[in-house]
């Protein structure tokens, strides 16, 4: 286990390094940053001045080294629009996104585990087919459209829930449903597949044979084993939600890092974009590391690989 963990940690570090290079290069090589910063009507001299001001005329490696060192010490630079530093901006918005993603994950799990379980227990019946059909339909809907439909029906028409803001938990319900909805199909399918496999196992037959009540067999014996990979995938899904929240937060004007990212990108506020990219990607690296270690801990067969 230790050997596996060490190997996996090394990979995570390498990926984190690669991600930082990409986050840095993406906005340097994909266009003339100084020209963009100076605006469309800027004179060549003005662009040159800005290039020197931001250190954009030095070699890329030197720029990257300095940026990385500063980022590691927690200094992600300054926003071009806000008075706060990038780190302060991200820290300020992070709680909203974390609440949103956590609620989204809880909703996804509450939907997918029971649905997947029932689908597995009633395999090839109309219940199973309805659940699978819903999963297929769910995956075909654009997330922003689903979010708008939620706003239209539950916010505007029925007036049950607020459609923007972050004042109370009620403000998070619709965005969390919209976000969780898109993780539900994959988690449901995994639960269903796991349950189908587990239900055919000998120890389930043994548990039934020794006369245990059905609900004990299902929950204590079957679900506990079937749900292990679901929990591991859920942590990866949480990472996806942190990054997928750009669309949902923008639709609901929810002041999280996704909305901040969209705002910063639209205004070409590159230090902020870079900082968010880095933070979100590192979160994801961390979450997949946790998920892999969790999987290996739950299933010793994986450690060999």
């Amino acid at each position, binding site marked *: 286990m230790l050997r596996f963990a060490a190997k996996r940690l090394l990979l995570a570090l390498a990926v984190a390094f690669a991600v930082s290079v990409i986050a840095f290069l993406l906005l340097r090589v994909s266009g003339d940053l100084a020209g963009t910063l100076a605006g469309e009507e800027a004179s060549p001299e003005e662009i040159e001045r800005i290039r020197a001001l931001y250190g954009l005329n030095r070699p890329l490696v030197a720029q990257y080294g300095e940026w990385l060192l500063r980022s590691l010490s927690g200094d992600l630079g300054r926003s071009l629009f806000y008075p706060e530093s990038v780190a302060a901006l991200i820290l300020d918005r992070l709680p909203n996104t974390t609440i949103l993603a956590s609620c989204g994950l809880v909703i996804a799990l509450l939907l997918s585990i029971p649905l997947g379980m029932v689908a597995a227990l009633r395999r090839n019946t109309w219940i199973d087919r309805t659940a699978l059909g819903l999963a297929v339909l769910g995956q075909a809907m*654009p997330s*922003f459209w689903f979010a*708008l439909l939620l706003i239209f029906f539950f916010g505007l028409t029925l007036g049950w829930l607020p459609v923007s803001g972050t004042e109370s938990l009620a403000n998070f319900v619709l965005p969390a449903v919209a976000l969780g909805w898109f993780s539900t199909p994959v988690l449901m399918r995994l639960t269903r597949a796991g349950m189908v496999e587990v239900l055919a196992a000998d120890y389930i037959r043994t548990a039934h044979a020794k006369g245990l009540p059905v609900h004990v067999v299902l929950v204590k014996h079957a679900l506990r084993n079937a749900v292990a990979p679901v929990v591991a995938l859920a942590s990866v899904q949480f990472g996806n939600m942190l990054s997928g929240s750009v*669309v949902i937060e923008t639709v609901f004007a929810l002041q999280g890092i996704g909305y901040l990212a969209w705002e910063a990108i639209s205004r070409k506020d590159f230090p902020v974009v870079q900082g968010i990219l880095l933070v979100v990607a590192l979160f994801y690296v961390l979450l997949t590391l946790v998920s892999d270690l969790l999987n290996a801990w739950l299933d010793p067969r994986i450690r060999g690989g």
Partner: protein
Amino acid sequence: MKPAPTASTSAEATSPEAVPVASSSRRRSRWLSNPGLVVSALVLVTIALLAAFAPWIVPHDPYAQALDARMLPPAFVDPERADPAHLLGTDNLGRDYLSRLIYGARISLLIGFFTMLVSGTIGTALGIAAGYFGGRTDSVVSFLITTRLSLPVVMVALAVVAVLGGSLEVVVLVLGLLLWDRFAVVMRSATMQVRGREYVTAARAIGCSVPRILWSEVLPNVVSGLVVIASYEMAQAILLEAALSFLGLGVQPPLPSWGLMVSEAKELMLFEPWMIMLPGAAICILVLAINLLGDGIRDATAPEGRA
């Protein structure tokens, strides 16, 4: 995911397994008796034909504005205000909604198809290389896949489009460079299974060059798995293009991208909800048809009794 059994697969399961290759008529019945496959194929062909012949089909110029005929609802929404000349109404600039929807299909299909080509080429090349050579190549490719997965797709795509501008080419290129991971993962494991087979060993023994082995021995035998991922990734690309355009950093106005149409209509959502329903439903139907077609082809081509 375990596919739901269809009429065709249960019929296969009861037939004697001694028949090694399905005769062409049986193969045909296997394709035709899968309702999901037939319906999705018909829907997709219809959309593709509409898109291909859009200039000759559309009732109006999709870019022609008419300020005296703005936001006319379709007849089924409000027969009082509807104008029979505009079957699905007009948008906030008086442009014919049906014509714009049909032209929008072109954008979705073009971006979906070419993104799938770009990402499919990258992912298949990487996956086959990793699976065939193994060792260090495999480590490098696995590293690339892990790195790619750590990058938030929507944010990276938005940022690149913001810098390079929202043309169709840029959107295709960005999405193509981001969506190759699933191709690589599936092709890698498929190639690993094929690598040790007799025909590959035989080709190696008679001195075939590596590119030749990869091209004419490995690729044809892993290609069946490609169809399903290709359909899935095409659907994914269409959804992402819609999301980027919706956020204002994808296809730019006045092009009638479906995502952009939803975005343009969202301010009017309370008064004219049909304006967001129609383009959203169009995306949904197209993506659903592509996904179901992929699932259907997988079921129909799966080896006997395994579907």
